[in-house]
């Protein structure tokens, strides 16, 4: 594969479109309600395996709501419910007999602000595996190292694994949270504006990391930052609110097309910075 890239030249995945990809997640006619209010309306998307899919759109258009529906984090909001279907590898996630714990294990999540637990770096990463019954010290050590390496954090923390996760810088904390999500070996990783609280250098590191991770994982990222969507993603879904204030996907295509030749006028206005 490519040699490791310097900070200044993030790798470009120009080949991603030409390489066919299986569908990892199929979202069919998904609507999300908070009591009577329809927050997201009739979304259908097919998410490619080992691809980065970006969800963009102005504030309040339901991007995060859509993302949080994908691993059923919305279940935690009182009064919320979903209609339609999300299918992960042929398995419907909102079916009755589905175990939410299993869904969240297979679909990990990284949040907008780094949220390490008030525990040591090691315990942060080991938290997930311990939940799923990994007890032996050597297995845990191995998993922690592997996850931290995958999150490109190992070299920075290898000598201080037992210091608090909160002692790290913001960018390191976010990579720790990524390592924590990786440690349970998910298939899909949801990222909710993962770099919006970070400085440009840390942001670039997260983006490079996404490029490395996508070889093994399917990534869906919500971002406010158009350049970020253009830099990192293979596919982009553009969301807007309709006249009932419900979020809809108005255009979904390869990122290159969304940014150079969008079909919808509103997409063009948004990505060229005319509003938003």
């Amino acid at each position: 594969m490519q040699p490791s890239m310097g900070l200044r030249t993030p790798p470009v995945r120009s080949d991603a479109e030409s390489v066919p990809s299986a569908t990892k997640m199929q979202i069919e006619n998904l609507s999300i309600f908070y009591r009577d209010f329809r927050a997201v309306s009739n979304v259908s998307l097919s998410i490619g395996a080992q691809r980065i899919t970006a969800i963009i759109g102005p504030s309040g258009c339901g991007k995060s709501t859509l993302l949080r529906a994908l691993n059923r984090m919305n279940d935690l909001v009182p009064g919320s419910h979903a209609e339609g279907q999300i299918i992960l590898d042929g398995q419907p996630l909102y079916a009755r007999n589905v175990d939410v714990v299993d869904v969240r294990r297979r679909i990990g999540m990284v949040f907008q602000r780094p949220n390490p637990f008030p525990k040591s770096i090691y315990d942060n990463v080991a938290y997930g595996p311990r939940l799923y019954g990994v007890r032996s010290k050597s297995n845990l050590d191995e998993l922690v190292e592997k996850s931290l390496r995958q999150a490109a954090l190992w070299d920075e923390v290898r000598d201080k694994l037992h210091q608090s996760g909160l002692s790290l810088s913001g960018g390191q904390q976010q990579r720790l949270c990524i390592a924590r999500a990786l440690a349970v070996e998910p298939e899909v990783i949801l990222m909710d504006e993962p770099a919006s609280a970070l400085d440009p250098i840390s942001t670039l590191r997260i983006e490079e990391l996404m490029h490395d991770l996508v070889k093994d994982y399917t990534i869906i990222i919500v971002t406010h930052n158009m350049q970020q969507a253009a830099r990192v993603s293979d596919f982009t879904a553009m969301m807007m609110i309709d006249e009932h204030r419900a979020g809809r996907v108005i255009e979904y295509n390869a990122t290159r097309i969304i940014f150079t030749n969008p079909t919808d006028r509103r997409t063009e206005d948004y990505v060229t910075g005319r509003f938003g």
Partner: protein
Amino acid sequence: MNHRSIRRQIWRKSINSVMLALCGAAALAVVAPLLLILGYVVREGLPAITPQFFTALPTPVGVPGGGVVNALAGSLMTVGLGLVMAAPVGILAGIYAAMHPDNPFGVLIRFGTDVISGVPSIVMGIFAYTLVVLPQRHFSALSGGVVLAFIMLPTLTRTTEEMIRLVPSSLRDGSLALGAPEWKTTIDVLLPAALNGLVTGIMLAVARAAGEAAPMMFTAFGNPFINLDFTQPVETLPHMIFTYAISPYGDWHGKAWATALVLITLILLLNVAARLLVWWRGRRLGLVR
């Protein structure tokens, strides 16, 4: 600057200084009684404090010396027992109320604790008397512990609830997003993050319970000797203060002040110790710098 704007500025500045003076006076009014009480207790109590005061039993009127070791032991027993009974219930109920604020049971917990905290402690004493002393047919440390548990319960529940709510929801989300069940999230993430506040709640509850004299008259009753048997009556520090204070003897009045000083100092030390423990743990975890 014209005449009007200068006048307006003078007006604004004088309003500012008047308000500042009012705030300062209010702050002083709050702190002054505390300092006065502390100062007076130290002045009146310190002369009677000797090492023997902590090791000896009370002496009869007119016999110099003596101490409050029986009350120290009894207070430790009743407050400790009360805490052991109230802390698990109060903390768990507080967690429940924090996690399910709108659920009817959560509302009931909040309402119930508010009502309990409004019940005068002497009424609680009568309640514990009926509940424990009557069936047992005599006073005991056990009944003292029970009444103190009821007194501590609302404080424990409410502070736990407030403190759990203060934990950022992002921490909870982070754990749940890993597939952790809610109980595991609570024990492994929320409680450690809220520990500082929980300790505050426990300290408040202990301080309040340790100072209760009225319910002790119906329960622990008092005892001039050291008793370590929970089924038998014990002396407690506040009850001892009461006994000394209502007596007609100047000698005992001095001892009442000294006992009060011991009680205040004990609670202060306990508070400082708990704070240090939390601070030390927080520093280890990088919660404070």
